């Protein structure tokens, strides 16, 4: 029996008025799959996530996600001076049930505490969000996504600026989530970490490649995805290359 994909896009083109920022996107991810979205800054990773969140209507084609996805944003856009505890932030995930006017109930509080436990921060539940380290804050935001109990999770550069201990914890949670049958879409710049995923989707204003890392992460695909931003360290074959990307920040 084949299960319906948890996430799918067909002939998808996206933009903000004018020229499409991303086009020709065609992929499917089954429940429990981990898909790596690879591409340079401005390549369309965040644009794709915005479409999956329903914030951006397609210019062409269609996109479908099973339920409302949980989202972990790329840069920290949170207000560190706003007086909320780690538990308060994790509890915000339960707002996804749509009943925003009701105070959180006991089961929601339990779910939020359990989510903090999963990211290893149960002892910090009452600490103010702004006083946690960068890696801990990222884990609290992951706990907020866990509280949402979504079938699909969109994680935009979840390891950017995160300490090794936090990164390890986040990776362990990803493994658990996949075992539970949840689908993960993780965007990253890091070509090497992309090889650990089931599927890889390479974007550079259009879809360059989609498939398993073993099939797709060859020199040609990487050079088309990253253009001059890539440095191939060794290997010249289709799949055995090792490469790093050079980041040009545009902000």
């Amino acid at each position: 029996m084949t299960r319906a994909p948890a996430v799918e896009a067909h002939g998808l083109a996206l933009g903000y008025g004018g020229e499409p920022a991303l086009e020709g996107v065609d992929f499917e991810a089954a429940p429990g799959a981990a898909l790596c979205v690879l591409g340079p800054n401005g390549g369309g990773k965040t644009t794709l996530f915005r479409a999956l969140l329903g914030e951006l209507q397609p210019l062409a084609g269609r996109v479908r996600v099973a339920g409302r996805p949980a989202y972990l944003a790329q840069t920290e856009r949170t207000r560190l001076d706003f007086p909320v505890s780690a538990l308060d932030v994790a509890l915000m995930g339960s707002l996804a049930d749509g009943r925003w006017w009701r105070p959180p109930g006991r089961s929601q509080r339990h779910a939020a505490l359990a989510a903090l436990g999963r990211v290893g921060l149960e002892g910090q539940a009452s600490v103010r969000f702004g006083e946690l380290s960068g890696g801990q804050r990222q884990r609290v935001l992951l706990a907020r996504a866990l509280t949402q109990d979504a079938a699909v999770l969109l994680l935009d550069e979840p390891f950017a600026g995160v300490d090794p201990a936090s990164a390890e914890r986040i990776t362990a949670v990803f493994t658990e989530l996949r075992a539970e049958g949840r689908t993960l879409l993780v965007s990253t710049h890091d070509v090497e970490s992309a090889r650990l995923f089931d599927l890889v989707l390479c974007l550079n204003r259009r879809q360059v490649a989609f498939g398993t890392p073993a099939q797709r992460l060859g020199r040609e695909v990487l050079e088309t995805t990253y253009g001059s931003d890539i440095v191939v360290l060794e290997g010249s074959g289709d799949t055995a290359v090792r490469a790093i990307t050079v980041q040009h920040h545009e902000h």
Partner: protein
Amino acid sequence: MDLTDLILDPLRSGIWRRAAAEVVLLGGICGALSFWVTSFRLSYPAESLAHGLLPGLVLAALAGIPLVLGGLGGVALAAGCVALASRDPRIGADSATAVVVTGMFGLGALLALSPDAPPRLEELLFGDPLGITHTDLISALALAVVGAGALAALHRPLCAVAFDAPGAGALGLRPGGVRLALFMLLAVAVAVAVQGLGSLLVLAVLVAPAVAVRRAATNPGVAMLSGAALAAVAGLAGLYASHHLGSAAGASVALALCLAAVAGSVLPWRLRRGEARARRGRRAAA
């Protein structure tokens, strides 16, 4: 005169009692609201609304209708004009707001200073808590009840959007809708509170309480309740000062609120109970 007399003496006057009730009601709701005004960085828009509604107030005074109606009309007109003017990206929202609001304030002053107008400009600009009517008190009570209900119902969306607007959007909230709801509540609060404190001084009760209690606030609920309590107490202190020193009542209330904000910002105390509790928890766990 002993302390009891200092406290009880003003209470013998019905006018003063009405002023005290008005200040406590407005301080309570606006003090709570001030946390959100500062969290959403709405101090400048709040000031703009308060100044821009002057023509509405003056027209209400000229027509002899309740000031709160003029205030509400003026606030709607000011908000509409600001929204329209802000749409031109070449000017920018701040500059457009400044021009529109100054223009409306000038129009209000022009109307108030026309030969036919009763001499009430001073009261409209600086407020007159001692001139509070029963209608004013009822509108303040209605604002307190409706405002408290709205803040309670909107508490979770306000927290989520103030903390992380894009993240709140991904949770299915509409950050723009939440901001608009807060802005409308603020507009109504300005229109009502302007009766007591006037167009120029009303901002004190909408911003100063949150500044005063900011460092003591461990969470949004505490921030709102302490802001409300502080605004009510500072407002009463201002009224007492005005009674005993013979100073202008509206200005005394506004000054008391601003002094509380300065004290809260510069005094070297820190009340961070949540933090201390967490530290104790960490020590116990270690």
